[in-house]
């Protein structure tokens, strides 16, 4: 079908040709959201406003004046982006019921281009976590837990109790967005990426997860985790779609002083035929302890793929990588402590009934409003910022951060175009397994391959690569030069085409107990 000049939302062609209307598309997504409710991917489904937006889009199509590729495309947004009129909770008691008076810049841009906002997706509380298991609305389930591929390989005795205890996590913290894209309930979703929060769940859910260069996309309206590392992330089913969404979001925002001043020119991704001029770097430090042999094998295979196609593949060193996670922890918690100070129960959000004094009200509000993970990070962050500790922790961590960033500068300066690394250490683990370790341990393990890109502000993307022995998705990560998204995505697209990642075969029990199976259709590619 309409594949001229790259894929670019196949469904968009269907909309344009009138094979499907925005309202039909929206309704289909809404009904899928209902039938996959058990995934817990959405915190809020904005059915009414979504249908209204779809209707408006339909009018535009009828007049032959759609706003662009995104017009009528159903999307979902992580629940840490402000959405005017739709609850924004950050999966926290602190913001339960909070309705923002304004749209985040990225949300506004999507709406301005006609996208249909289906709802807000689940996450770890205030995006602090790597499993999407630590939010007040409960864990997100990985759609692949309910795929034929997983069931065939991992649950031979397909008894229902087994299924109940065997479901795997999505990764996080943008697990809701990853699950939403993976289960076809939307065509693209926004996540946020501070230490890997977009790429990690993308890898576990078998979708594309792009973390753009820091400063390319506005953070205005994204409820911050770590201001100096946060980037809005893009989750889609293919690299081309990610490029379209990126094009619609990128560029200077007067409301975010850390965005680039230059205008961003949206691009279409070329179909790369010749990779012989490419130099792919394989950072040896990413051969990290705990890396599964499966992923290691896949990584080598991918490197060979480039080599065989004529690209130069070189081993490179990013020597400060091993200090990255500790350094990240100090910087992250320090900013968290600062950013969370505003939640005092006065202006908005939860307020405790405790009214003995302002101070006791603050304390009770924050104890009731935040979970253990958030409180723990606030505590350690404040500790690192204390006058007597500042030099030893915060300043040191900042210096190490600089060294890590310089590692990348040196490697890219040596002629390497793109780095190829694993995204995660292993495939997704079952929830029951995951919660045996605490959030802190999990985050330290799971962010290890992703957070250095945040420290350095570099663009990075997860490309779904293959299925593990258990039938779960495994992805690889490409890291590019600052603001070289086009090159990064072009290479990612070439790779995507080579690996032919399989389609999820989702088996969802409907209310009538018959099994509904997603078919690969033109709309859901």
């Amino acid at each position, binding site marked *: 079908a309409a594949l001229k000049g790259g894929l670019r939302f196949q469904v968009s062609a269907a909309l344009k040709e009138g094979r499907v209307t925005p309202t039909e598309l929206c309704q289909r997504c809404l009904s899928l959201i209902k039938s996959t409710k058990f995934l817990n991917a959405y915190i809020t489904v904005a059915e009414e406003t979504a249908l209204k937006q779809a209707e408006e889009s339909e009018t535009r199509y009828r007049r032959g004046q759609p706003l662009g590729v995104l017009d009528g495309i159903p999307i979902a947004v992580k629940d840490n982006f402000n959405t005017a009129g739709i609850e924004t909770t950050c999966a926290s008691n602190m913001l339960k019921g909070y309705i923002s008076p304004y749209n985040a810049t990225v949300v506004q841009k999507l709406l301005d281009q006609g996208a249909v906002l289906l709802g807000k997706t689940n996450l770890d509380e205030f995006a602090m976590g790597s499993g999407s298991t630590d939010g007040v609305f409960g864990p997100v389930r990985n759609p692949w837990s309910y795929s034929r591929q997983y069931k065939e390989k991992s649950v031979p005795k397909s008894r229902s109790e087994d299924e109940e205890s065997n479901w795997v996590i999505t990764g996080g913290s943008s697990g809701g967005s990853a699950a939403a894209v993976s289960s076809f309930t939307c065509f693209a979703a926004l996540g946020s990426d501070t230490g890997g929060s977009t790429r990690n769940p993308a890898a576990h859910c078998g979708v594309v997860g792009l973390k753009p260069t820091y400063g390319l996309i506005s953070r205005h309206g994204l409820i911050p985790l770590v201001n100096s590392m946060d980037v809005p992330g893009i989750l889609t089913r293919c690299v081309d779609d990610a490029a379209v969404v990126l094009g619609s979001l990128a560029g200077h925002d007067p409301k975010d*002083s850390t965005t680039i001043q230059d205008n961003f020119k949206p691009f279409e991704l070329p179909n790369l035929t010749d990779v012989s001029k490419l130099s792919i770097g394989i950072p040896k430090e990413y051969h990290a302890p705990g890396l599964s042999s499966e992923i290691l094998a896949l990584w080598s295979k991918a490197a060979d793929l480039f080599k065989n196609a004529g690209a130069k593949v070189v081993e490179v060193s990013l020597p400060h990588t091993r200090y990255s996670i500790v350094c990240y922890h100090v910087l992250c918690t320090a900013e968290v402590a600062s950013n969370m*100070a*505003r*939640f005092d129960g006065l202006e*908005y959000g939860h307020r405790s009934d405790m009214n003995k004094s302002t101070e006791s009200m603050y304390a009770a509000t924050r104890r009731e409003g935040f979970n253990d993970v958030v409180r723990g990070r606030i505590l350690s962050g404040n500790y690192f*910022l204390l006058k007597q500790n500042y030099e030893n922790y915060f300043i040191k961590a900042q210096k190490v951060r600089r060294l890590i960033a310089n590692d990348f500068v040196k490697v890219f300066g040596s002629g390497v175009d793109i780095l190829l690394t694993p995204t995660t250490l292993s495939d997704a683990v079952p929830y029951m397994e995951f919660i045996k370790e605490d959030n802190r341990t999990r985050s330290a393990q799971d962010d290890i391959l992703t957070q250095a890109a945040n420290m350095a502000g570099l663009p990075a993307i997860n490309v779904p690569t293959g299925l593990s022995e258990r039938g779960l998705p495994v992805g690889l990560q490409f890291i590019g030069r600052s603001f070289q998204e086009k090159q990064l995505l072009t290479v990612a697209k070439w790779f995507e085409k080579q690996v032919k990642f399989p389609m999820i075969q989702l088996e969802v029990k409907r209310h009538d107990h018959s099994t509904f199976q997603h078919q690969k259709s033109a709309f859901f590619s």
Partner: protein
Amino acid sequence: AAARGCGGVWRRAWQRGAGGPAPAPRGQRAVACNARGGAVPAGKSGLAPWVPVVGLEIHAQISSNSKLFSGSQVQFAAAPNSLVSFFDASLPGTLPVLNRRCVEAAVMTGLALNCSINKRSLFDRKHYFYADLPAGYQITQQRVPIAVNGSLSYSLCIDNKMSQMVTKTVRIKQIQLEQDSGKSLHDDTRNQTLVDLNRAGVGLMEVVMEPDMCCGEEAAAAVRELQLILQTLGSSQAVMAEGQLRVDANVSVHHPGEHYGVRTEVKNINSLRFLAKAVDYEIQRQIEELENGGTILNETRAFDSKLGCTVPMRDKEGKQDYRFMPEPNLPPLILYDAKSLPANMNHQQVVNIDWIHERLPDLPSVKRAKLVERYGILPEHSFTLLNEDGLTEFFENVVKQTQMKPKKVIGWILNDLLSYLKQHSLTVKESPVSSFLLADLLNLLEKKEISSTAAKQVLAELWKGEGKTPFEIVKEKKLELIQDQKELEQICQAVIDGQENEVIMMVLG
């Protein structure tokens, strides 16, 4: 202990005689001030004298249309919470956007105070929980402020005599840009606190003065000069009563040759008069405390203007650790000069230090020198002219409209106009006598149509503001000088005739 000083003898000089407590003679106090860094004679203990040290931190609200980091309007006494943007209320996800006008105001002020302007300065977060600080932190410039290492020259008179003025200099440590907080209104009867965020996020310049002063009078004179400079620049309206200029004083005392003593910080000072009072009170309190064997605590004290003394402030959270951190949402503030300005830069987007420098208005010191030179008035008169808002203009307007020499005009302005206005608590703008009327009157005097005594009588009539011209009053009251010889002789003869006895007595001797 604080209450002790608040009674009848609250104000004793720190150079007391052996006689013990006595009200401070103003003259003596001034002597202590004039000897900068000089020692103050010892008290009853007879030990070494005391040296008071005074440093100031001054917060000047920037005069701008909108706040430092948001688009909300800046306006005094607007309806509560009517000037609050999403950012000011610290709604999650909002980000600061620096207001160019505030940067320019700070650069102007820095240049006027002889500072070096940092071409790269940084913003930091200062954390503390308070109801009128919605974000839980204030954005300020802790590490690298916008301006450093300046100086301010100010003058004050010795022995309260205008004729004996001395000029002193206080070093300016730095000027930093920062956000103002909101206002908390405590309603004790209903046990609640009301918060008004109109002021939250308004741009402030914090001017830090080195401890180069030694008494309240010096502190007040320095602040007055700063106030005049800010108003001349237009960088702040600097009205203390409206909180646009707020002063905290750091005060300590020590013996000559010893290290500085422990200092206290005095807050809540909202007028120049109270500043002088608060500082002097605090110096005296510390000396007394130390001479009685006590110690000075490094504490924050408030000036109670009703009691005329400083009292310790209840510091609820104890010693604060502000947990400073770089503000990650604001890139370094980069300023340019003619040399560093990139050619292709949009001038609307950059702040050019040289451009601002070239356009600085005449500062008060220059204005005074020009007045002295142009009109031949005394230097101390130029101070008085500038000290009163609008008085210089009034004076110059009178000079323009009269043939009288400026040197004589100034006497009428300072002795008659100003003292009348002071007596009636009027500003120059509110004067019932316009510069035109005064010039009219002085012209009558200059043309010898009336005597100087008559002129005062006319002026007394003019104050009534009945709309009569000086000429009309002169006519009405028959106050003209008589120029005709014969007429004068007749009047004299009439007087002599009427006083025959006295004349005879005089003739007889």
